Structures are given as C-alpha cells and as structure tokens.
C-alpha cells in the first residue's frame, strides 16, 4: 500500500472566491511545510483535511490517505491526527485518561493501563498517569498531547503552528521529538507555520501560500 497523504487539486473557496489552492503528495515520513502570512487560510486547509471546515467555506478537490479517499468521511473516521499550538489536553481528565481517550476500544483495563504507562515512560513522564494536566509544565503538556495523538494510531499528522507557544529551547526539543516520531512511524506530516525556523527544521518541501484575494 502506498503510504501517503495526497491532496488532489484541493481548492478552498470563501464566498465563492478561491482562498487556497494546493495540489501535492506527502510521502510517508516526509514533512510538507505550508507557510504564509496570517489570515491567508493555512488553518482552513487543515480543517478541510480533518473534515471540520466551517460552513462559511467551501472545499473542492480530494484528500487521499494511504490511497483511499477520505474527503467525504466524518472526522472521527479519517485517522488524521492533529496538534495545535495549545496542548488542548482535556482539563477534566487526568493525564492517563487523556491518553486513553484516543486509544481504540477493546483490550482489558490493565492492558490499557500498561500501554499508557509505557508511552508515558517513552516521553520521560513516568508515573504521571494520575496527574491533573494543569499541574504539568508546557513541555510536559506538549509531550502528553503528542502521545495522546499517537496512541489513536493516526495515519497522517497535521501540525497547526504546533510549536509557536513554546520558548526557543523547548521548541527545538519538542519539534525534534515530533519529527523523529513521525519518521519512525512513517507518517506523512503537513505542517502549517509562519516560522521559517520550523520549516527549516522539518527539512521537507515548503509551500508559500499567497494571499489569493489580493490577486
């Protein structure tokens, strides 16, 4: 099977006017960076892929994930993971419960628990399962958010300015962790950013989105 995220002649319109046009294939383990000034509709592109495009917009074209067309599928059936600039850990759940939220149903409680403990260990947060997310540091939260997404077994990864809230040191650290994990798991990654540093670190292709409205 051809592991890739394929955006075929994707075009997003607002009020009938084209906002973004993308036609690109991201292969497994590759990162495509989409750059452009704010307001150009970078995040709108991501919402088209996750299936949550606001009703003010209209999307055309197709999204293929590992060869199958997901354009018409509901969000929960797309297997596309996404990270935002905020960790968006659910504040009413413990760290462990947040991780369990994305895991597929089935398996015993203890199996699940073991898996959660193991993945926390992987990101250096051993014993954090029962903690309140609010008590974690920014970097810790980012790692939990990444792990929560990975535990849902996504087939592609979207990053929406995912590192912009972190300070410089942490930023490089988390960024490396995300890109390394994506490569290990052979996930195609689509990153939206306004930071050239991020794009450079990603090492993949870069698309500069222009403001089509200005044309």
């Amino acid at each position, binding site marked *: 099977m051809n592991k890739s995220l394929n955006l075929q002649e994707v075009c997003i319109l607002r009020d009938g006017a084209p906002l973004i046009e993308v036609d690109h294939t991201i292969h497994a383990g590759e990162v495509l960076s989409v750059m452009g000034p704010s307001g150009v509709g970078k995040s709108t592109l991501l*919402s088209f892929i*996750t*299936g*949550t495009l*606001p*009703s*003010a917009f209209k999307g055309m074209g197709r999204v293929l994930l590992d060869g199958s067309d997901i354009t018409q599928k*509901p*969000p*929960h*059936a*797309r*297997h*596309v*993971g*996404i990270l*935002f600039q*905020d960790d*968006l850990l*659910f*504040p*009413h759940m413990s760290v462990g419960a947040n991780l369990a*939220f*994305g895991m*597929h149903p089935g398996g015993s409680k203890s199996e699940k628990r073991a898996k959660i403990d193991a993945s926390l260990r992987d990101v250096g947060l051993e014993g954090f399962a029962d903690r*309140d*997310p*609010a*008590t974690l540091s920014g970097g810790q939260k980012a790692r939990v958010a990444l792990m*929560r*997404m990975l535990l*849902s077994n*996504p087939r592609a990864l*979207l990053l929406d300015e995912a590192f912009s809230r972190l300070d410089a040191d942490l930023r490089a650290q988390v960024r490396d962790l995300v890109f390394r994990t994506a490569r290990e798991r052979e996930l195609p990654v689509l990153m939206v950013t306004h930071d050239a540093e991020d794009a450079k670190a990603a090492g993949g292709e870069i698309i500069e989105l222009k403001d089509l409205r200005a044309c």
Partner: protein
Amino acid sequence: MLRFLPALTLLAMLGPVVAGLWGTLLPAFGHLPSAGLHGPSLDPFRNLFAWGGLADAARLSLTTGLVATALSLGIVALISASWSGTKAFRVLERLLSPLLSVPHAAAAFGLAFLIAPSGWVARLLSPALTGWERPPDFLILQDPLGLAMIAGLVVKEVPFLLLMTIAAIGQAQPRRSLLVAQSLGYGRVTGWLKTVFPRVYSQIRLPVYVVIAYSMSVVDVALILGPTTPPTLSVQIVKWMSDPDLSMRLTGAAAAILQLALVIGVLFFWWLGERFVAHFGSLWIMSGRRGQDDTPIRMFSLGLGSICALAVFLGIASLLVWSLAAFWSFPNVLPDEFTWRTWSKHGPDAFATFGETFLIAGIAVLLALILVLGCLEAEHRSGRPLSRRGLWMLYLPLLVPQTAFLPGLQTLLLSIGADVGRIPVIFAHLVFVLPYVFLSLGDPWRAWDARNAIVAGALGARPWAIFWRVRVPMLLRPILIATAVGIAVSVGQYLPTLLVGGGRVSTLTTEAVALASGGDRRAVGVYGLAQTLAALVPFTLAIVVPAVLWRNRRNLHE
C-alpha cells in the same frame, strides 16, 4: 433528530404565546363562543373605557414600568462607571448575584416588612429618634403612585441588569478604553460613560426591554406592594378574568390588549429615547468635558447599590424573624420571644409544596436543558450561529406581557377541554424557563474552544461522544448554573401557575402570594423563606458540585 430541535424549541417557546394572544384577541372583540358570545363587537373596549379606574391603572402601568427601569438602569450604569474593574465591584457583584435568584414575591415581602410604617426600619428608629410610640399613619405601602412597588422592582432589577452588564463588559474590553480616556484627562466615571457605556448598552438593550415589559405588567409584586384604589392594570385584568360574570372576561381581554399596546408603546418610546440620548450623548462626548471630580458620584452609586443589596438581605432576615416570632408589638425591634410554632404549623404544608414546586421546576428545566443543549449542539455542528432575529425570538416571550397572553391561554385550554393541572403548568413555565436557560448557557457554550472538538474527533470520537465525554463535562459549571437559573425562574412564576393550573396546582409562590392577602406575617415569613431557599439552594449546588467534582482539576476553576 437534532435538526428538528430548534424548531421544537421555537414552538415550545412561542407556541403558547401566540396561542394565548389569539385567545385574548378574540374575546377582546366580543367573540367567546363557549360563553355564547359572538363578535366582532367593540363592547368590551367600551366597557373597559367606562371603568372609572382605567386612567389611574394605565398610568400606574406606565410609570412603574418606566421609572423602575430608568432607575435600575441608572443605578447599574453609575455603579459600573464608578467601580467596574475594582475590588469593590467584585464584592458588589458577589453580593448581588445571589439576589438575582430571590423570587420577586419574596423580595417584595421582605421589602414590605422593612419599609412599612410598622416595619423594621421604623422599629429600629423608634421611639428614640422618631418619637413614634405607634406606627405613623403614612401611606408607604400600596401608595397610589406605586412608589413602594417601584422600589420592590428596582431592588430586583438592579442585580439582573448589573449581571447582564458585567457579561457585556467582558466583551467590550473596557480597560483599554478607560486607560485611553484617563490618559486624555477624563475622570473615571465620565470616561467610562463616554467610552464604554455605549458599547455595553447595545449589548444589554434586550434585557432592558425585558425589564420594561416585566415592570409594566407584573402581578405578584403589584399585589404585595402596589396600590389597590385602583390596582395596576395587570392586577385588574386578573381580577376581571376571574369574575363569575363571564362578560367581565371580555373586558379583561380588552384590557389585556390595552396592556400589550401600552407595553409596545412604551418600548417604542424608550427606543426613541435611546436615539435622543445617543444624539445628546454624542454631543456630550464631543464637548470634551472631562468631569474629573467624581468621588461624590462614586460614593453615591456605591450607596445605592448597597441599599439595593441590603434591602433584599434585611428583608429576607425579617422574613426569618417573623417566621419565628411570638407576639411582637411596635416599636420593639425584636419579638417578645421566639417560637417554632409557626414552623410546626406551616412547615409540613410548606414542605409538601416545596416538593410540588421542585417537581414542576425540575421537569420544566430538564425539558429546557434538552432543547437548549440540542439547539446549541445543532448550532455547533451546522456552524451556523444564532442570528440577530433568533435572539429577538428568544426574548419575545419575555417581552410580551404575561397578562396579555396567559389569560387567553387559560381560556383556550378550557375551551378545547384540555385538562388543567401540572402538565400544562410545566409547559407554561417552559415558555419562561427556556429563554433564560438559553441566554445563560449560550455564551459559555459558544465560548468553548471548538478545537477541543477537532482534537477529539481526530482521536476517533464520534460527535455524541465528543458531546458527552468532552463538552458537557468541561461545561458542567455553566450547565449547572443555567439549571439553577431555570429553577429560580420556575420557582418565581406566579401568573402561569395560577392561571394555567386552574387553582389545582400550588407552588410556594402562589401559596405565598395567596397568604399575602391574609396579612399573616408569620405564615408569609415561612413561605417567603421557603421560596427563597428553593431558588438559592440550586445556585449553591451549581457552585459547590463542580468545585467538589473537579477539586483536582485546576483548569476548571475560574
């Protein structure tokens, strides 16, 4: 299913209003087939205009509505201008927000016990300061100008408008505006009024209109504090509607139409007033007057706000004291002794009524929550937020005077042979509970970060799983607060229970108001307190439950 909820909500909210207005309109023009009367005829209006008390009753409706609203709005504007953003303001907010849920009738009883010539205030000052050995023969309650009634409305509407204002201030980003104004040399009050108030007012306009319509047509407060020679138009409508002579119903219906016309007229008048004030306000803004010395005005506004809060708190305290009083003569500040007798006499009945009250409130609020959460979820999923027209629809049941459509609804229910009792009462309550639950829950619901839903969806959660497992728990606090608001609204309903219940359904409010005519302050104390508790306890729970449930979840505490 979800798609139909908005329509269903609209039907539950506006159906009874429209049906009731129809049921009022027909008899107002002489058409009441069930009584063998066929219209159209103008006799009902002729009879109405022949009533000697009409001019006074209509004037009372106008003045109480306008004066109570203007005073409440003025106090709220002054308090906000003087204190918003300060520590004193937060204290005042804390003090006033529980008052919002105190039923109007209970607050009115408390106020009556305070300001009557034989009330607590006079007792505190007598005979030392006043020399009164007996209560002075002053016409303080039931005064023909309706001043006591206006006071009773103001102490309740100030908390309502203030909380609405606080919500609006949050969106108006007042701090920056105020900083800019102050850096240009404006005083705090003047600066706030010139830069922040216009934006805030446009947000609280509809609530202000609600206050106008409510104050013009309220029945329970008028029965307790209002004049009787003649009574207000709305009280007289209820009297006519319950006259054994059926032709009086026609007069009552005509009066109800007049009441509606008066409210519409006053709303229009107010709207004109808004234009007028906006015009002169902008001249005032352009004048560049800085108005720096505003210490007196700040003290004055703090005093007014405190009086409002104090009036209700002391009033409730006086309900408590009367409910425990043995013989208590004037001018003693406290009763000769305290006794449980009144409680042991009325406690069991009050408790049973408490149950009935909660049953009605509980079901009405549950229905309201289902409809409102459904609407909000439908709105979220379709991505189409409530339009301006939708917002007006929400406010419509609160803008149509109760006395204009409830008598019609009662007549209509009777003529189709519908059973009276609890179920129609629940649906009548729903008409008023729905908008408040919607307004209370709408903002926090929409303010929720929708990216949570995107993340949860990307993690494989289906829409209803997102709703139940993520959104509802995160919004538990506002949901419980909205529930408490709904319960308080239902507990406070007088006219819907009385008219639609056909006398078979009694809640704490109808019992308390019925007791009012008997003047037994001890019994009124018991029922007034029970009423207050019925509204306050859910509020307390709404604050305590999430705090306990989420005690280890710091981000859910504001």
